[in-house]
């Protein structure tokens, strides 16, 4: 196994990019830390180092899903929240990713993995745990929906 630092040097920007697409800029940092901690914990027991990037992106994807689940539970409102307009200056250049975040989970992940980190269909399929055909379909559906949203 190469020293773990080389994984950070080579893939940290990709992982952060995917996570920004999947959970937004603000929460991407937390998911990034969780992703690499999980990877570091498992690293000595990893069988082979052939596709470390795909391995990391798979973990990142799982952490993003965990994040959405946790947030889904926490977001149960007890009363109607006050209506305050929210403007996050960090997100204003992020229009398309805001739309990506609104996609259903599989489509969102497929789009983020394809365009956020430039992953080929086979690796997206591996990360999502589905067939390449299903990955292609999710990606296709996601893009179709984005086109409609952003038109």
């Amino acid at each position, binding site marked *: 196994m190469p020293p*773990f630092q080389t994984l950070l040097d080579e893939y940290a920007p990709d992982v952060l990019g995917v996570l920004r697409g999947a959970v937004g800029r603000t929460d991407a940092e937390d998911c*990034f830390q969780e992703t690499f901690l999980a990877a570091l914990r498992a690293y000595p027991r990893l069988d082979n180092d052939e596709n470390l990037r795909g391995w990391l992106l798979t973990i990142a994807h799982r952490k993003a899903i965990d994040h959405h689940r946790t947030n889904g539970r926490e977001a149960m409102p007890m009363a109607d929240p006050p209506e305050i307009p929210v403007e996050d200056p960090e997100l204003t250049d992020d229009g398309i990713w805001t739309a990506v975040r609104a996609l259903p989970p599989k489509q969102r992940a497929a789009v983020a993995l394809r365009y956020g980190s430039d992953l080929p269909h086979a690796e997206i399929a591996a990360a999502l745990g589905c067939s390449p055909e299903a990955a292609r379909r999710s990606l296709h559906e996601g893009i179709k929906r984005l086109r409609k949203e952003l038109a």
Partner: protein
Amino acid sequence: MKATLQRFAERAEAEGLLDIAYANVDSPFGPLLLAATPRGLVRVNLPNYDPEEALEELAAKVSPRVLEAPAKFERARRELDLYFEGKLTEFDLPIDWQLTHGFRGKVQRAIKRIPYGQTRTYTEMARSAGNERAVRAAGTACGSNPIPIVVPCHRVLRSGGGLGGYGGGLPMKEELLKLEGVL
């Protein structure tokens, strides 16, 4: 990204996952790579040896959980700076001896005890390690010292007064001995 990575190294350490921390440190001879386990300094890589190779060896021999963590080496950096300025004669850094075993390990521990500005011969080192006749093995032990400078193998010379060898190259050995006032 830099702050993110630093935070990651801190969290890794807090969770007991930082098996080997490393940092690059400047020296008058070029960049040194320092590596430490939670127990102490485990490796000092001299400028003439590829630092990436040194890290790969550590990953293979100790643990692949290797992270750059410069903040962990402030004291080592300070002591080395002072040493190279001639203002420090004894390193006070914890050492992890796990890369040395058996007779070599004994020789290297004996080297650590040679005082600043003094020299020993390979024969004397063989004797300190408990086998006076193993002079050649004592030489090998000096040559395979994983923590040079801090474990001062540059203070070991040939019996006839010749300099012997040095992993960092003979000119570096000579400079270190001049710094300590031996030459």
